[in-house]
């Protein structure tokens, strides 16, 4: 199987605010020495607590941010060595669904425009073809072609998240980086979207980086999983193996079901007339 994405030794640190005026600037190591590979048709889950570096990794893979060290190869190209015009051309082949859908949509343009935008990188697609592809993508995520004329604020939160997914799949990319792609959706719609992503993988060999804090979804959707803790990938492997026999204590703590106060629920259920 062909490798679609590989990272080797990738690091990124961000400066934190100074504690004292003129004091040294503390740094936050958001990602340290991350290495991974992803092949066509494969889904790699990225899990880890809030702030562990998952979105940082996603932004680096997309070339929206540059690593301090290490090498990122997407579709055979070192994206940080590529001149801007070539990166733009390559861009149609790897797309991202952002954690915050509002952020990826232009508030002053109808969403149909935002969905079509990644298609502009391909000069072979004329306007009618682009329109057709946008309509198709909207239907795939359970919206209507006519919804393309609406503005982002005219949608509900979950509808906006689906618009962002439509934008992510419209180019039929070979790599999709999906950052919490279904977190705003009800379970019924989550099921529909994940089924859709599975279909795209089967049909087009889509490779996917699937970031989620919902471990049940990761267990369902992913082939392999990488566990992140404080910017490091502490453990990775086939999802069934990592989740059933975690090597690291951190992974075990993630997997431990948080205690729920089901006791009072049971009491209430018993009061049912």
């Amino acid at each position, binding site marked *: 199987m062909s490798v679609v994405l590989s990272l080797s030794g990738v690091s990124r640190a961000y400066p934190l605010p100074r504690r004292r005026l003129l004091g040294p600037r503390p740094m936050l190591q958001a990602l340290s020495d991350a290495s991974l590979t992803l092949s066509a048709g494969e889904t790699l889950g990225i899990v880890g*607590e809030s702030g562990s570096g998952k979105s940082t990794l996603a932004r680096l893979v997309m070339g929206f941010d540059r690593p301090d060290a290490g090498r990122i190869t997407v579709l055979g190209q070192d994206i940080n060595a590529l001149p801007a015009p070539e990166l733009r051309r390559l861009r149609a082949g790897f797309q991202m669904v952002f954690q*915050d859908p509002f952020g990826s949509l232009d508030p002053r343009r109808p969403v149909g425009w935002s969905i079509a935008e990644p298609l502009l990188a391909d000069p072979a697609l004329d306007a009618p073809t682009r329109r057709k592809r946008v309509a198709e993508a909207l239907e795939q995520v359970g919206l*209507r072609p006519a919804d393309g004329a609406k503005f982002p604020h005219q949608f509900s*939160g979950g509808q906006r998240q689906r618009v962002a997914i439509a934008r992510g799949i419209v180019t039929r990319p070979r790599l999709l980086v999906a950052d919490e792609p279904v977190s*705003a959706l009800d379970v*019924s719609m989550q099921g529909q979207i994940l*089924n859709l992503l599975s279909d795209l993988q089967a049909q087009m060999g889509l490779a996917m980086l699937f970031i989620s804090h919902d471990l049940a979804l990761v267990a369902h959707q992913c082939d392999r999983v990488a566990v992140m803790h404080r910017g490091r990938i502490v453990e990775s492997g086939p999802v069934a193996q990592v989740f059933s026999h975690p090597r690291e204590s951190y992974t075990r703590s993630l997997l431990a079901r*948080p205690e729920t106060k089901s006791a009072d629920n049971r009491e209430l259920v018993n009061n049912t007339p």
Partner: protein
Amino acid sequence: MYKIRNLSLSFDGHEAVRSASFDIPRGARLGLVGESGCGKSITALALLGMAPASARVSGSIEIDGQEMAAAPERLWRSYRARKVAMVFQEPLSALNPLKRVGDIIAEPMRLHLRLDRRAARARARDLLVEVGIPDPEARLDQYPHQLSGGQRQRVLIAAALSCDPQLLVADEPTTALDAHVAGRILDLLKRLSETRDMALVFISHDLEAVARVTEEMLVMYGGDIVERGPTAQLLADPRHPYTKGLIEARPRLDALTLRADGAPRPRLASIPGSVPALADLPKGCRFAGRCPIERPACAGLRPAVSVLGPGQRQVRCLAPLLPAKVPA
């Protein structure tokens, strides 16, 4: 505290919320659930006088005896933050990108609680600790874009809690959080409601979370409140076919379902069909067209609300389901 009667919101003549009536007593915890696009967020926004400008709003919203539905923005503004606060569904768009986290949380306290700069900052820091953000001192001086998704969501929660609201409306407040942190936030909200008599309207697609936090729940579909009642009863014994579908689509989270390496992915369950566009919703029961037990009359006739049992439970269905057998 809140009395909502026949609240309707429409866009271009299409009703997105259809004559909703409910009360929010002081200290009550109310869950609001339903599929994407069924009207939860705009109902919540209306409670704070923040319905979209393009929406036509009718009906009555009474807060502590005062009619607020047609109140001027000036009056609403003095209510917000001081009396009612909201955790918005999309944190990034709700946080001012030009302000530091510390100011976002502290400014309402300086304005409404008249705290001085140092006191407000100290309390902002405490709030960040309370919502579980590590290294709070450094975070106070950062901008929203420098935080992770889950950190931003918790900053929004901290800001909403800063002025000790009497009502907190939390719209999907834990979507960016893992189960452990989410659980901690849910317990915090519940505790504040119990110890400070804060009322809570909790919107979530996570039925487990709703069960954990709320005492009563409303189920919305296509702008109608189709069922309501005590949360645990309603989850154990749904009477509206839509509620039942919603509960059955819930993935079984008790055990992670692990596939053998290379085994095909099973299809995930969902309620057949999808929520129609506002303009295409049936005039009668909104669920007509998707309902597994639909009768010929359903699409044309809006069912009246029937009261079940001793009056706590209500359902808007022509032929509600029979009680489930609940172990005694």
